[in-house]
């Protein structure tokens, strides 16, 4: 019985973790859907967004280190702090600007290239942004606080304690993440499926040339999608950054999102959520039940193996578009 309750708790937490993964995976899906680009830089984008947010909040001088090294000054802070809401809005603007630059400097020149080339370009971009983030805001660890509460959710603990005689643990941050993810997914699904721009975005993913030939401006679509993805990255960055502080490792959450993506299907927004949930629960349960027998720390590979198992049966992921094979 105890085991069961614990298992239930693990499942519950797996679901919550899954939502956190899904937040990252969403950004990938968006860009993949819109341009067929597998955007490796999504993780770094989240880091960059979080760094920018903290930097703005704390009134840091961007490029302070560089300026100081070049001119022998010692600038660090403007000496003000910016309220969280305003800082988030400003960061979102920065992400739009970034999307604009990425289109202008990178994507535009790679129209019609094979997917692997575009994939590589995003890796180059990831390097660049990582360096830029460091130069702009410094490589030290920063604490991110936009007022989202963390810690045990007392309400749920109390209620479940009454029902089961054992209070379930749920992180309040995760509850927030779930709420935000739900809103994001609903909005994005509606956007991609039922709006003209959403349709155009899917068209671009299928065939750049044909999309251009019917008058879809790749530039517009890409700036739009990368802006949205930048915003999603910001949300993911806030969630993960609140948990672990903002530092380089934040960009590595991308690796946790990949199995989610694979399982849900690269092109499916709801797939990102469902995939996240399955991966979250799966890896947690495995670590919980089997982990101790094989020495633990299985989560990293188990997530991938789990996704792989699903793929063997559905090569396009659970909700991915069927891979069209015809001659």
């Amino acid at each position, binding site marked *: 019985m105890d085991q069961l309750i614990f298992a239930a708790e693990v499942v519950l937490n797996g679901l919550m973790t899954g939502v956190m993964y899904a937040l990252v995976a969403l950004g990938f899906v968006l860009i993949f859907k819109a341009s067929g680009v597998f955007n490796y830089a999504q993780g770094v984008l989240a880091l960059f967004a979080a760094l920018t947010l903290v930097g703005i909040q704390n009134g840091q001088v961007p490029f302070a280190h560089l300026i100081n090294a070049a001119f022998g000054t010692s600038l660090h802070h403007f000496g003000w702090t910016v309220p969280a809401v305003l800082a988030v809005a400003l960061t979102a603007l920065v992400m739009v600007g970034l999307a604009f630059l990425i289109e202008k400097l990178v994507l535009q020149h790679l129209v019609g290239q094979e997917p692997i080339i575009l994939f590589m370009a995003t890796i180059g971009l990831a390097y660049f942004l990582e360096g830029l983030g460091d130069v702009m805001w410094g490589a030290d660890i920063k604490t991110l606080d936009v007022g989202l509460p963390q810690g045990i959710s007392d309400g749920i603990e109390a209620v479940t304690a009454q029902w089961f005689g054992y209070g379930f643990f749920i992180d309040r941050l995760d509850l927030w993440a779930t709420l935000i993810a739900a809103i994001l997914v609903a909005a994005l699904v509606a956007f991609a499926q039922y709006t003209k721009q959403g349709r155009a975005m899917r068209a671009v993913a299928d065939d750049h040339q044909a999309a251009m030939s019917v008058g879809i401006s790749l530039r517009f679509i890409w700036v739009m999608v990368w802006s949205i993805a930048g915003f999603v990255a910001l949300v993911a960055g806030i969630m993960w950054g609140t948990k672990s502080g903002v530092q380089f490792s934040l960009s590595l959450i991308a690796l946790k999102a990949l199995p989610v993506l694979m399982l849900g299907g690269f092109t499916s927004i709801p797939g990102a959520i469902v995939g996240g949930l399955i991966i979250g629960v799966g890896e947690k349960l495995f670590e919980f039940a089997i982990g101790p027998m094989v020495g633990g720390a299985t989560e990293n590979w188990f997530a991938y193996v789990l996704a*792989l198992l699903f793929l063997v049966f559905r090569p396009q992921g659970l909700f991915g578009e069927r891979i069209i094979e015809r001659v």
Partner: protein
Amino acid sequence: MIYREAGDFKTSYRDDGQTFPIRLDRWGYYAILALAFGIIPFVINDYWANAVLVPFLIYAIAALGLNILTGYAGQVSLGTGGFMAVGAYAVYKLMTAFPDVSIVIHILLAGGITAGVGVLFGLPSLRIKGFYLAVATLAAQFFLVWLFNKVPWFYNYSASGQITAPTRTVFDQAVTGPAATAPAKYLICLVFAFVLAWVARNLTRGSLGRKWMAIRDMDIAAEIIGVNPLRAKLSAFAVSSFFIGIAGALLFAVYLGAAEVGEAFGINKSFLVLFMIIIGGLGSIFGSFAGAAFLVLLPVLLKNFLVGNMGWPTDLAAHIELMIVGALIVTFLIVEPHGLARLWRLAKDKLRLWPFPH
């Protein structure tokens, strides 16, 4: 018109199929070989060997391997780090279990073992394609690293899980362990790189290579004209892993001397080798070398320039180095998506036409 093929007639299919059909290319190639085998070993110092040439040759072997899989057979893999780890641990186990057998044989066997593991992890490629496969190969990456970290047998039960290469000799010259000299390390890597490049070239110009390329370009059509996709893909995984395993074995035994799996064979390694082949050129032997040279040399040069010459603080230099590497990757892809190898060929095309364009 210095560089030209006109007048360089071939009278047999054999001549036509040779590796360097153009005379000038052939001479250049011999000159490089003479330099690599005849001159460098006598002038090389520790810094050049350990910081530049040995890693360059080892990564070139890994890049060749990955290029066979990704560039020729079209299966994108991100499991390179894991497969290199297999090579490293295999050679370590062999070296310590059979100290009397030649290290060369150990390295080859390590390649063979890696080939087996590669085939195993290549099985899903029959169903899973493209980026899905790329991500799926990460399963191999993470699982293998975890395995070598977790099972003490692999690291001979050492307290910390590190493996350290004992000293082994070839022709009475230490090539592994602390006593190995720079020329010895360089030469053993060079021999492996040279022979493997030659094998890679042979495999890719024959029927196996054509099967791989057919699968890469259009797997359905390839199957309909009679290529067994299972065998083609698995053979690519096997050969590729063999190369990568040897690279891993050399990386550990000759270059690093000691390794910890998560650190030395982590996912970064997978990406690094992938960069090499893309920057160098997918589906090109020369490209594998060019890409490896580029990515091994560039950071060293940048560092020496920014810190050494410009006197920048190391951290700023390191950050800017990241930005430059990233920007260069992107620039390269924009200028020539098919890598240094294609750039080289285009330059030759232009030379051939020079001084009359078109």
